[in-house]
């Protein structure tokens, strides 16, 4: 399938120079970005088959002997392109804090307990319709030192490849109605309101499993449009 990648779509992204997020101040490039033509180097990208994903990688509650503490949730959705077409068989990687807001990472010093039954890393491949599904626990909010009394809204980090180097994206999924949204410079770095709302999952009774886990839906739209939309033969 041949895809085009409109540059206008990039306006949804935050600016790297977002001073309210302190770590950007010394890390954002100061010179203008150079417009890169979309050559074969950009329109191709790695393909990950089932070799990269083991059975059980998508259930973060069953990676240890016991069950993790916290609110069990199902996070599912579709990966789509800019035309709304599913992106099938593409890799989704996630990572997150535990229910207490603590990451397994060695440099996370937040004084909340680690959970011996939770690592917080998962992988899945989308199916033929672009669907993915994870079982995990709801991550806690956690403090950070960006400014006085700074707390990150609960979030799950997502990494996706899509069809090419151009569709590669790392993002974060948030939960609906979080009171921390308005204070969080990372969430607010996305200045377009509609784009920002695309980062928020929806509570979904339809994927909620009775007596088991709440369902949240998070659809992800990657760069890329079909170069030649196909007309159906019998339509007028």
């Amino acid at each position, binding site marked *: 399938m041949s895809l085009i990648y409109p540059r206008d*779509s*990039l306006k949804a*992204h*935050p*600016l790297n120079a977002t001073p309210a*997020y302190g*770590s950007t*101040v*010394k*890390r*954002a490039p*100061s*010179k203008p*970005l*150079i*417009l*890169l*033509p979309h*050559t*074969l*180097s*950009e329109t*191709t*990208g*790695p393909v*990950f088959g089932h070799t*990269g994903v083991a059975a059980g990688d998508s259930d973060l509650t069953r990676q240890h002997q016991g069950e993790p503490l916290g609110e069990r949730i199902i996070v599912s959705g579709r990966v789509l392109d800019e*035309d*709304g077409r599913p992106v099938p068989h593409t890799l989704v990687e*996630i*990572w997150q*804090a535990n229910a207490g807001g603590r990451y397994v*990472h*060695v*440099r996370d010093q937040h004084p909340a307990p680690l959970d011996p039954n939770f*690592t*917080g*890393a998962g*992988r899945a491949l989308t199916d033929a319709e672009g669907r993915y599904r994870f079982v995990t626990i709801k991550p806690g909010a956690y403090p950070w030192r960006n400014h006085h009394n700074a707390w990150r809204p609960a979030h799950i*980090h997502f990494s996706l490849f899509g069809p090419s*180097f*151009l569709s590669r*994206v790392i*993002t974060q999924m948030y939960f609906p109605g979080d009171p921390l949204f308005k204070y969080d410079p*990372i969430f607010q*770095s*996305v200045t*377009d309101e*509609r*784009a920002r709302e*695309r980062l928020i999952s929806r509570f979904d009774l339809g994927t909620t499993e009775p007596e088991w886990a709440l369902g949240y839906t998070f659809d992800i*739209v*990657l*760069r890329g449009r*079909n170069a030649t*939309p*196909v*007309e*159906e033969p019998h*339509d007028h």
Partner: protein
Amino acid sequence: MTTETQARQAAGPDFGITPSQTIGPFFAYALTPRAYGGPELATEQVAGEGVEGERIRIEGHVYDGDGAVVIDAMIEIWQADARGRFNTSGNAGFSGFGRAEATAEGGFHFETIRPGAIEGPGGTMQAPHLSVSVFARGILVRLATRIYFEGEPGNAADPVLALVPAERRETLIAKRDENGVYRFDIRLQGEGETAFFAA
């Protein structure tokens, strides 16, 4: 009605892309989990033994605008094989994709083969190069750049290097040291700032 219209109706009215967010400081246990004993999707070994082509090693550091070493970055590379082909099946041991963490010592490296030249826009040829993505705490949108190679005759006619202001081109060219290792440092900001692309 086109299938595109049907797809739009099925999935809702809004197809803007999902915005990027920072990788944050704590990705390693998921994305580069060697130290945590986790399964690695990809590593700094892009080409295994026996893959056709000249084997090369690339080493570098990431620096911030103060010249301080960045120790929480992830670098990914994407490249053609020695004959300039992408995604070739039948080239066992070569994925074309590498992923490395900039470690606490601040360095990253890749072991791969020198890619071939590839077709560029308008019948031009692009000199051998690697496509690079830089992710880190404080980087809200992936930074895209390229690694070219010192002494490569094709560099002079490369259509992408030609878009880079002459005084900044050197920031994209890996230099070979006395041990034969290519050095490629990434400077996010300020003096010697690496040329980054809007892809």
